[in-house]
C-alpha cells in the first residue's frame, strides 16, 4: 500500500536566550495550540503523537512526560518519544502514517538549554570510553571539523563569515529568530571558529501536524507532501571519519530522492557556519538553491527542536506558495554525526 503524507501545519515559539518564567510544558503548549488551531484538530482527533527532547538539557529527569501534559493525553493517546531532535520524531510519525495505522499525527519538540551549559551537556552524548572523559565540548569538535575544511581548501574565515552574515540577515524576516540581523564575527570561540560562526544558545519549541492523503487536502490548502525521507549515520569515532564530507547526508538524500530533480529551497540544519560548507558539498547545492531563508540554526538553535524547525520552515514555504520542491535536513551528534534528509513538494498551483 502506498500513501502520500504531508506536513499540513507548522508552528514555533519565539526563540529566547532565557525562559526562566516558563516551565517546559508552559513553553511547548502555545505551539501545540497553534497547530491545532490552524488545522481545527483537537487532541482526540489526532491519531498519533510523537515528541523529541532530551532531559539532559534542563537537567530534569523524565521532563518529556511533564511536557506531555500540554497535549491533553487523557483518555490515553497513541504516543511515542525520541531522545533526540524532533526531526526524528517526525520520521517515526511519517512511518506510522505510511503503515496506515493513523491518518494524522502531531509532532513536537523543545529544548530549554538556558538552565545548563549546553556545550558541556553535549559532551555526555560522546563515546564514554575514549571521548567523554576528556570533555571535548561541541564548539571544540566543530572547530576541528572547520580546520579540516580550511586545510582542504574548502573554505576560509571570510567565507565562513559570509555564511554567518547571510544567515542572520535572512533572519530579519523571521519573527521567531533569536539573532536577526548580521553582527560582528567576534573573537575566536575555539579557533578557527569565531563567536559569529557558532549558533546562539537558547530555548524554544516547535510543532507540526502530518496528515495522509485526502485528509491532508482537507486540513491545508497546499500541503507539503513528503516525497521521501531517510536518515543515516557516520562511523562513531571522529578520527575514522573524513570530517570534510558527509557521506551519510549524501546517502540519505539519495534515498529520499533529493537528486531525482532540482529543489528551489534547502533548509539545512548547520549549527556552525563550517557545517553548511560540508552540507552544500554533500547535497550538491549550487547558487540556484535558496539556502536557509529562515536564517537557519545560526539565527536560532533550540537544541532538539532546530532540526524539526528545518522541516517546518521548508513546509511553510510550500504552504505559502514560495517553494515548489524543497529539501529539509536535520542533524544530531558531533560534526554532523547523523543526518536526516526529506524532500517536500507542493502540488502545481491552479493558474
Amino acid at each position, binding site marked *: 500500500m502506498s500513501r502520500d503524507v504531508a506536513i499540513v501545519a507548522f508552528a514555533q515559539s519565539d526563540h529566547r536566550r532565557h525562559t*526562566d*518564567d*516558563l*516551565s*517546559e*510544558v*508552559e513553553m511547548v*503548549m502555545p505551539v*501545540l*495550540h497553534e497547530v491545532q488551531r490552524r488545522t481545527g484538530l483537537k*487532541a482526540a482527533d489526532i491519531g498519533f503523537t510523537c515528541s523529541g527532547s532530551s532531559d*539532559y538539557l*534542563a*537537567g*530534569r529527569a523524565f521532563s518529556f512526560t*511533564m511536557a*506531555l*501534559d*500540554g497535549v*491533553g*493525553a*487523557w483518555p490515553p493517546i497513541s504516543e511515542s518519544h525520541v531522545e533526540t531532535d524532533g526531526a526524528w520524531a517526525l520520521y517515526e510519525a511519517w512511518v506510522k502514517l505510511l503503515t496506515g495505522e493513523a491518518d494524522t499525527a502531531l509532532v513536537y519538540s523543545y529544548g530549554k538549554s538556558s*538552565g*545548563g*551549559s549546553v*556545550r*558541556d*551537556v553535549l*559532551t*555526555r552524548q560522546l563515546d*564514554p*570510553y*575514549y*571521548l*567523554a*572523559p*576528556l*570533555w*571535548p*565540548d561541541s564548539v*571544540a*569538535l566543530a*572547530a*576541528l*571539523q*572547520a*580546520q*579540516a575544511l580550511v*586545510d582542504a581548501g574548502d573554505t576560509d574565515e571570510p567565507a565562513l563569515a559570509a555564511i554567518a552574515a547571510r544567515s542572520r540577515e535572512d533572519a530579519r524576516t523571521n519573527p521567531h529568530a533569536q539573532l536577526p540581523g548580521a553582527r560582528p564575527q567576534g573573537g*575566536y570561540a*575555539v*579557533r*578557527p*571558529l569565531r563567536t559569529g560562526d557558532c549558533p546562539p544558545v537558547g530555548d524554544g519549541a516547535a510543532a507540526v501536524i502530518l496528515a495522509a492523503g485526502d485528509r491532508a487536502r482537507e486540513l491545508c490548502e497546499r500541503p507539503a507532501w513528503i516525497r521521501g525521507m531517510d536518515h543515516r549515520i557516520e*562511523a*562513531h*569515532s*571522529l*578520527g575514522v571519519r573524513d*570530517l570534510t564530507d558527509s557521506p551519510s547526508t549524501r546517502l540519505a538524500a539519495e534515498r529520499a530522492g533529493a537528486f531525482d530533480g532540482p529543489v528551489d529551497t534547502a533548509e539545512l540544519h548547520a549549527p556552525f557556519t563550517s557545517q553548511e560548507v560540508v552540507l552544500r558539498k554533500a547535497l550538491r547545492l549550487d547558487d540556484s538553491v535558496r539556502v536557509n531563508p529562515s536564517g537557519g540554526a545560526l539565527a536560532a538553535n533550540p537544541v532538539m527542536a532546530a532540526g524539526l524547525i528545518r522541516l517546518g520552515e521548508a513546509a511553510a514555504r510550500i504552504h505559502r506558495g514560495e517553494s515548489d520542491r524543497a529539501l529539509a535536513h536535520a542533524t544530531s551528534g558531533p560534526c554532523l554525526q547523523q543526518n536526516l534528509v526529506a524532500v517536500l513538494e507542493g502540488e502545481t498551483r491552479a493558474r
Partner: protein
Amino acid sequence: MPAAAPPPEALRAPLVVEFPFTRSLGPVQSAFLTGLRERTVLGVRTEAGGVLVPPVEYDPVTAAELRELVEVAPTGTVTTWAWNPEPRRGQPLETPFAWVLVRLDGADTALLHALDAPGPEAVRTGLRVRIRWAAERSGAITDIACFEPYEGDESTREREPAPHEGGFEEPVTGIVAPARLDYTYSPGRAQTRYLHGLAERRTVGERCPSCAKVYVPPRGACPTCGVATTDRVEVGPRGTVTTFCIVNIKAKNLDIEVPYVYAHIALDGAGLALHGRIAGIPYDEVRMGLRVEPVWSEDGRYPDHYRPTGETDADYDTYKELL
C-alpha cells in the same frame, strides 16, 4: 484571588546533577586502556588491513568482530586541530591548548586529545607530536596527559606496527567515568506561584478552565484537556488520607525513623491527591479516610508532614474519585 495578578519574580536555584558512569570493557577496549597504563599504545587491525587507533571491538565499515591487536608508536602527526583559549572544567589541560586529532605512527585513523603548545602559532596540521604520559595511570584515556610537539627520531614514522598479544598483568575490565553538570533550575510560572504560596503557609492550586479540576501542586497544564490552568484556588489546609503505605526501609540521608507512613492526601478542594508523610499517630493506626492537617517545616517553606486533626474519618464516597 484574581487570576490576573502580576507574575511573581521567577524563582531560581542551583541544581547539580552528578553521577559516576560505571562501564564494563570489551576485550579490545580492555587491552587498549590497560596498555595505556603500561605506556603501550595498541591498535586493532581491520579486515581490510588498516589499523584503528583508538581501537574498537567491531569494524566501523563491515561490523566484523575485530581482535587482531598491534602496537603503534607513541609519536604521530596532527591531522586537524583547534585552539582552545579558555579550557573548561574536566578538559585535559587547565592552560590554553589545542584540541588535536593525531594519527599515531603505524595507525590509519586518528585519536582525539589535547596538545600542550605555547600558542596557536605553534600548531599546524602535519605537526609531529608525541604522547606525554600522566604520572599516575589507571587504565583510562586520561592516562595520556596530553600530546606535546616532538622533533626527534623519525624512524618510527613509516614502521609497520608489530603484532601484540594484548596480555597484561591485572588487566582493567571497566571504567568509572564521573560526570557533573551544573544547572540553574527555574520552575516556571505555575510552580513559582505555588512555591510563593507555600512560603506564606498557603497551598494554592490551579483550576483547569475546561474541566474545572483543581491541580495541587499545579504544573501549568491540565493533562486531560491540554490547556493552561489559570484560576488560582487555595485548598486545604485540611485533607483526607486516600491511600497510604508503611515504609520499612530507611532511606539514605533521611533522618526519619522507620516504620513510617507515606500517604496520598486529598486536601479539601483539591482535584487530586498529593504525597506526604503522616506522623503524630502510631503507624499502624493510619487508615484511609483519616483527616489530617499540615505541620510546617521549621523554616515554614513547606509541610514537613501531616498529622491527624481529630475529626471523624471522611466517608469513602467523599474521596473515592481521588484515589
